């Protein structure tokens, strides 16, 4: 845990201003800890230089697992484990197996991906987040800058934030 950490917070109330601010601040070589917004701001992740998430791949893999599981289950159960004559059909006949296969694909893909998401972004019901500014879920965008990871002095960073459009500049210590 980041104890005795000192942060400088830039508070923005307009996403466009925020976007430019992010570029400015990073342009000044300041490392941004994270930006907290009440709603997704498009382009922010690029601006912060985040890599694209690999969740889609996870989803695909989980989906494929579902497909194969479903097919194996059905063919084994009706075709091999206990074959029964049903309506004169073949024991393991593909066409009737399609719906269940599809459903299981979707199910595993969805659940698997969401679970992955929860894990990678460390979300759990009993966890209290470190809140820099309670307004960050209401109507303010909070840009948090960790002093320990920056060479620049607190004041300078504050100045940079100010002239890149921050309404207020606060500091927060844990």
């Amino acid at each position, binding site marked *: 845990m980041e104890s005795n950490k000192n942060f400088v917070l830039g508070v923005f109330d307009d996403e466009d201003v925020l976007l430019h601010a992010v570029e400015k601040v990073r342009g000044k070589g300041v490392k941004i800890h994270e930006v*907290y917004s*009440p709603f997704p701001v498009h382009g922010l992740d690029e601006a912060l230089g985040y890599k694209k998430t690999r969740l889609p791949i996870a989803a695909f893999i989980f989906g494929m697992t579902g497909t194969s599981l479903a097919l194996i289950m059905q063919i084994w*159960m009706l075709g091999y484990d206990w074959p029964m004559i049903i309506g004169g059909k073949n024991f393991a006949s593909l066409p009737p197996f399609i*719906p269940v296969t599809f459903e299981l694909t*979707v199910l595993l893909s*969805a659940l698997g991906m969401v679970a992955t998401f929860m894990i990678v*972004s460390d979300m759990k*019901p009993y966890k209290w987040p470190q809140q820099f500014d309670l307004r960050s879920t209401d109507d303010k965008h909070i840009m948090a800058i960790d002093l320990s990871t920056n060479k620049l002095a607190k004041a300078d960073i504050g100045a940079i934030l100010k002239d890149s459009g921050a309404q207020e500049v606060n500091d927060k210590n844990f």
Partner: protein
Amino acid sequence: MQVSSSLRESLITGGKTVGDVSEDICRQVEGKPTKLWWMAFGVSLVLLGFGVYTMSMTLWNGIGMWGLNKTVGWAWDITNFVWWVGIGHAGTLISAILLLFRQKWRMSINRAAEAMTIFAVICAATFPLIHMGRLWLGFYWALPLPNAFGSLWVNFNSPLLWDVFAISTYFTVSLVFWYIGLIPDFAVIRDRAVRMGNKTRATIYNALSFGWQGGAKTWMRYESVALILAGLSTPLVLSVHTIVSMDFATSVVPGWHTTIFPPYFVAGAIFSGFAMVLTLLLITRKVFKLEDYITIYHVELMNIIIIVTGSIVGIAYITEFFIAWYGQVPAEQYAFINRMFGPYWWAYWCMMTCNVISPQLFWFKKIRTSLVSTFVLSIVVNIGMWFERFVIIVSSLHRDYLPSSWSMFYPTMYDVGEYVLTFGFFFAAFLLFAKFFPVINMAEVKSIIKSSSEKKH
């Protein structure tokens, strides 16, 4: 700089700021429930009680309590099932498909719509359960579980089993989708609670929000999750009613055995789903004073979709008849003539007027944009859709191949009771939702406030 389109009407009116959004939406969660709310809740509990009584009687004495017979093995039970499933389509459809199409107007309605979906699907699921002769065994025998009876597996050829998978998958995925959407909004309520110093609420809603913080990285992942879920839900939502329709389409019963069913059922589902969404939203909007978020423009857009799907359904009806005539199968031809002029003619014509004729009124902008007429018609449409399922199921079964077995179906109090049961549950659940959950997706609405609501500087 201020971007507001002159082509489109604005989605959010009343010059709301991002702050107003949190305020307006959270108010009803934080405040005490109104008298109106209590009354509505009480009524739904009464309905629920009656339903529970009739259901227990049925479970105790047997399915014989219903009006079914040797010829008509399904009637109200499966009619209600299909009806509810249909209604359960709108939510996910709105969120998923409209999200893929980047239809921003969905944002203020999808939350409620999804909630409705969840509850509707639960209602739907009760019917396949209680319609079983031996529920106490059926509820788990219908699953492919290893069991004490040796290698005794389920029959994957059966559409009913497909239903089991389709409905449960649809329910789970919709639930997840809905909840993912709720997480950031729970966080909003949590933080407001912290500020108000309401510890308990803060703890509860923090737990509900999984400790959401709203960092840019999380938002990025969050968005791709939402997008993929939407991508998964879209075929899913189409598959569900397709599979439900296969209960009938894959059978040999004249009037059921129809290849047009899948698309036609899906259209019907969207049709009834949107109608139900409208019914509920128009009430919610009034009760929780959300006129600025759920605008006439929303209503109108949904009405347009109702015209479209309603017309598709109408065409499907006509196509069925054409094929029956063209197919030259006597039993088939009789089945459809019997629908129109047989003992159940009233059900058929009720369906026709409600589903095909009434939605056409929405061609008139006046009607389309009038809340009253929309409210009335949305209910009419759902009555019509109930009769559609009743017509398909009962009027096909009661006179099929061998005239010797032809007979009628007369519902009993217990048939009705189980239907009432689901209504009781549905409204009770929806009221609870509307009280304790943010009925509008704040995060999304906030994201469009700027572009869509004209700020007054």
